[in-house]
């Protein structure tokens, strides 16, 4: 599952991408790729360039140098909708949900199924509920009542809903922005299971996180981002969790800090 090529072109590839804002270089010469049924974890601390990377992959910012490729073909996304049309779906931390609106209405927000014509065109809520039930069921989530507001769901369930929605609307690559960051241990574990579920269903997943423990549990490959640069990509066989933690924390700096704390 985690072979470098699989014999097929990666679904999404960033090829020597550089992105600058004025005189600040947010991303420099970043390359990465994700295949179908693969989880690529992008690890980085605050300010490493994670959010710029997400925005570049999802079509918000075009890269200044380098290129993006979908199925091996160079592309230039004109907007997030354009990226979405090519199957690149980004799940942001706010999940693009309206807290006071029901599960079903959130799932279909902006793409509501309707019946009837002309002025009698109306929501097809029964059809919508059935779709949501099936899609959530495939993620392993059972909800008794689809009309509860999203604010009544747990953090993990909300994440599942967002992922299920992205897959339902044709995502082949899921870009997940820190899906576990605001969650407790148990909920984070549940979310990681959903991420693996998405992989099992054939999605390529780019999991962006600052948590090496979470990443190592589910990732097939790991790219470490630091100050806008790629600090190396490793397969799971090539790197242990401790090594990942050490590299993430900037290894020597942490040891230095430990030394200083002990001294004082």
């Amino acid at each position: 599952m985690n072979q470098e090529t699989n014999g097929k072109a990666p679904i999404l590839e960033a090829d020597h991408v550089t992105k600058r804002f004025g005189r600040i270089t947010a991303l420099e010469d970043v390359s990465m790729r994700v295949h179908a049924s693969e989880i690529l974890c992008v690890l980085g601390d605050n300010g490493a360039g994670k959010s710029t990377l997400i925005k570049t992959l999802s079509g918000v910012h075009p890269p200044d140098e380098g290129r993006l490729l979908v199925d091996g073909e160079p592309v230039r996304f004109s907007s997030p909708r354009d990226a979405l049309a090519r199957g690149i779906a980004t799940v942001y931390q706010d999940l693009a949900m309206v807290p006071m609106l029901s599960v079903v209405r959130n799932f279909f927000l902006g793409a509501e199924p309707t019946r009837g014509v002309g002025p009698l065109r109306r929501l097809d809520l029964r059809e919508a509920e059935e779709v949501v039930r099936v899609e959530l069921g495939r993620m392993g989530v059972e909800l008794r009542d689809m009309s509860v507001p999203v604010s009544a769901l747990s953090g993990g369930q909300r994440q599942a809903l967002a992922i299920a929605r992205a897959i339902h609307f044709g995502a082949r690559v899921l870009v997940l922005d820190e899906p576990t960051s605001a969650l407790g241990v148990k909920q984070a574990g549940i979310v990681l299971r959903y991420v693996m579920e998405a992989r099992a269903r054939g999605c390529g997943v780019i999991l962006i996180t600052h948590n090496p423990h979470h990443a190592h549990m589910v990732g097939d490959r790991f790219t470490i981002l630091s100050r806008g640069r790629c600090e190396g990509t490793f397969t799971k066989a090539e790197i242990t969790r401790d090594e990942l933690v050490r590299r993430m924390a900037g290894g020597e700096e942490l040891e230095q800090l430990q030394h200083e704390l002990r001294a004082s």
Partner: protein
Amino acid sequence: MSVRKWLVRPELGVVAAVVAAWLFFAVTAGDSGFLTLSGTASYLAIAAELGILAAPVALLMIAGEFDLSIGSTMAASGMTVALCTTELGWPLWAGIAAAAALAACVGLVNGLIVTRTRLPSFIVTLGTLFILAGGTIGTTRLITGRTQVGGLEDAGGFGTAQKLFAGQIGPFSITLLWWVGLTALATWVLVRTRPGNWIFAVGGAPDAARRLGIPVDRVKILLFMTTALAACLVATFQTVQFRGTDVLRGTGKELEAILAAVLGGTLLTGGRGSVIGAACGALLFGMVQQGIVFSGVDSDWYKVFLGAVLILAVLLNSSVQTRAAEARR
């Protein structure tokens, strides 16, 4: 629906308040006419006019915006109808069409300024409230030298308009039918159509709505036009009923409509609310205003009562909803 589901409905507080107010006045003013058919008709007529304003105001507030300009829009629309017919000699229907066009423009301008400049709609429509109020007084005095215009009954088509806008069904005003119809329509749009879903999203999570491709600005602009057109409709009712109008007609209606919507469980911050609730809010308003008269208390006092009821109803709503939401987890 389970009991808990009813408890978290936004209309709960106002329905309780309507029942309480009715019982209160039935006891204190039952023998002076509150319970009679004509007594009922008198508060329903007030509720109908306010309710027609409150329904679109609730939709706009759910979408996260205010419209303070509807009071002045009423004055301007009513005066447009009156001046077009009495000064220009147009048939009444042409005057009403001109007023509707004016109102649509007011809503369009409100919406465009709010969505383009990102200024709070509270400020923008407060500005248009004053501009329209002053403009109406200035124009009317410039043309007629007075601030009141009458004599609409001579305009062509007045008879039909009177049946449609100021007629009676038994003791009840025909505006009641308009109110019920428009409330049903607005409710249907809100809970059963795509644009209705978008209204909740636009007010509840505007950034998310935008990212999901919902035309946020268009939704808001259309809602501003709807509130302005509702103001024009109510102004038309009154202008036809009184066969003329006054430059101050509609003063304060913008706040009464917001009051009705908030009584009905609509959040000031957007994202939640109900048209049925706003209708109940309008009903409560009418009931209290007339009930005070029937109970023999000086009617100057009804606003004190309404203000207190507003605070109580909102308090009840929020506390019940907090508890119900907690229980649900």
